């Protein structure tokens, strides 16, 4: 049996080779550029990066936007996953198509659609005025709120699908057992349902945060150059400033954040798995 598994694992060789050449090797070269100077090894680029107040503001904005995007996606995705898990036949197909089909649309097209929604005379301002919540149009375009709404829209499937996978396997007899013992709906949710679905929440949040923290096209189109993120700084460093050490340094910082998220989420998932 072990020998058979070993042989089957050879099927992964092309994929591993491809990743090594196309992904790992360039990544190592990129990281090397961030610590290599004409004089030899140096962390000066990192020191300069973290000493610059502007860079710190961009780093904080990147983390804040990614965090809030993840939170908004979670708030929308969690009930959606439950609705999908209860859906049967045609309704389930409708849910899945609604989830997957928008992924086939380019971000540029979506950004133009959002600009129609967020305009001063756009649909959202019109609706808010019509129901009397505001007297005159409020500025929505080029705001962080618009960015978070737009990003959550793009990354929603990456939050819904992991939660849906867990919720679908949830043993419905457990909340029912809690109910039969007199637990209130609130108690059942926080002490039975939520802990059992947390692995899906962690996986979905890790996916969404990792994607949101490194997004480039969406902030470029929705908030423009006045609210830069780390990815925009990387593009600027390589393409406009032609400063490869700076671009490599920021890339390494971004990679570090992504790795930290993956490691933390794996650790959390293991702990939650052990508890449940």
């Amino acid at each position: 049996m072990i020998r058979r598994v070993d042989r089957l694992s050879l099927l992964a060789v092309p994929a591993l080779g491809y990743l090594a050449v196309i992904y790992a090797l360039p990544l190592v070269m990129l990281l090397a550029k961030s610590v290599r100077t004409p004089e030899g090894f140096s962390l000066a680029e990192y020191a300069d990066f973290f000493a610059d107040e502007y860079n710190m503001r961009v780093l904080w904005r990147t983390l804040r936007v990614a965090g809030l995007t993840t939170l908004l996606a979670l708030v929308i995705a969690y009930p959606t996953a439950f609705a999908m898990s209860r859906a049967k036949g045609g309704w389930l197909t409708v849910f899945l198509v609604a989830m997957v089909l928008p992924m086939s649309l380019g971000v540029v097209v979506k950004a133009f659609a959002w600009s129609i929604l967020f305009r001063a005379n756009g649909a959202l301002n019109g609706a808010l005025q019509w129901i009397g919540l505001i007297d005159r149009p409020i500025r929505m375009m080029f705001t962080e709120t618009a960015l978070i709404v737009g990003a959550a829209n793009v990354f929603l499937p990456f939050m819904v699908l992991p939660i849906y996978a867990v919720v679908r396997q949830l043993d419905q007899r457990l909340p029912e057992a809690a109910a039969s013992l007199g637990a209130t709906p609130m108690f059942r949710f926080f002490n039975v349902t939520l802990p059992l679905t947390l692995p899906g929440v962690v996986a979905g949040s890790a996916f969404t945060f990792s994607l949101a923290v490194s997004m480039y096209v969406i902030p470029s189109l929705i908030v423009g150059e006045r609210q830069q993120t780390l990815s925009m700084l990387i593009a600027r460093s390589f393409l406009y400033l032609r400063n490869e050490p700076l671009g490599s340094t920021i890339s390494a910082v971004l990679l570090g954040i992504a790795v930290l998220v993956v490691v933390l989420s794996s650790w959390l998932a293991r702990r939650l798995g052990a508890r449940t």
Partner: protein
Amino acid sequence: MTRLTHRGLTRRSLLKTSAFAAAGTLATPALLRAQSSELVIGCAGSHTAWMEEIVVPHMKEAIGADILFEGTKSSVNLEKMASNKDQPYLSVVQMDDPVMIQAVEADLLTPITAEAVPNMTDLRGDAVHMDGMWCNYVQPWAGVAYNTDYSEGVPSWDALWDPANAGQVIIPSLQNTEGMWTLFVAAMLGSGKPFSEAQYEIDAAFAKLEELKPNLLSVYSTMSQAFNLLEQGEITLLSGNFSSYTLPRKSEGVPVDLAAPKEGIFAMPSGICLVKGGPNPELAEAYVNEMLGEKMQSAIADFASSVPANTTVKAGAVIPEGVQIYSPDWAFVAANRRAWIERFDKLMAL
């Protein structure tokens, strides 16, 4: 696993097949490059309309070239050329003068000669740069684009700073060449000096730009999106826009126009060059020759409301009368642009 072996799929054959597949995949771009009639051209994203409609069919008919073009910003084209210096895949690049200077400094260009490109002898003298390292092929003019439903015109660049236009203005980033126009206007208005002197008053320019912040809705690096907002009336003024973009939209009935404010307008520095060591060099020279020839010059100048560089061509845009048209010291820009971009981004950051 046994069944697999019986069908002849052994571990060795599997690895061999994978290796051949990987080699094939990696070799594909080289195989494609080897096609003799193909030319990859780097150009601006805003060139897409006339490249598709005018240039691609003409080049197929005139020189038998299959044109592939990559529309992006000049600085991105420069990066592509620099990154692929040892094995260039672009043959010709159409980009702006300040970036051309950087490309010359990085030894990425090969000179255009009259022997290989006879039509360059018909160009205006000031359209050939650094002994033929690049030529200007057409020149759009730049001013302030405005939405005609919300503005009757822009008599002065001061309108950008007018409190009545709070939140109604978008300017280009200095990452885009057209972003320089707002910087130079700010230098003129801030220093009170004529353009010839003001273009070096960069501190005055940044001080004046800071005063513009309350009026800014955004700063763009992707022009099409900003222009879309102008067309839809979300903003009233789009600074630094140029005739090859605004005037064709105006002629299509979109409520936009391009103003030539009294302080002056700017000549967009649209250049064309041959990439050093680029594929199909003879076909690339033929392409450049066609671009500088009468037929292409007339067609592009008419389509893109630009001033042709070829002196035998009478078509194209008419430069507004009664205002100065400026062309800055691009060497000074090229030497300082990186520092200006960083300073500008920090100044404009929210």
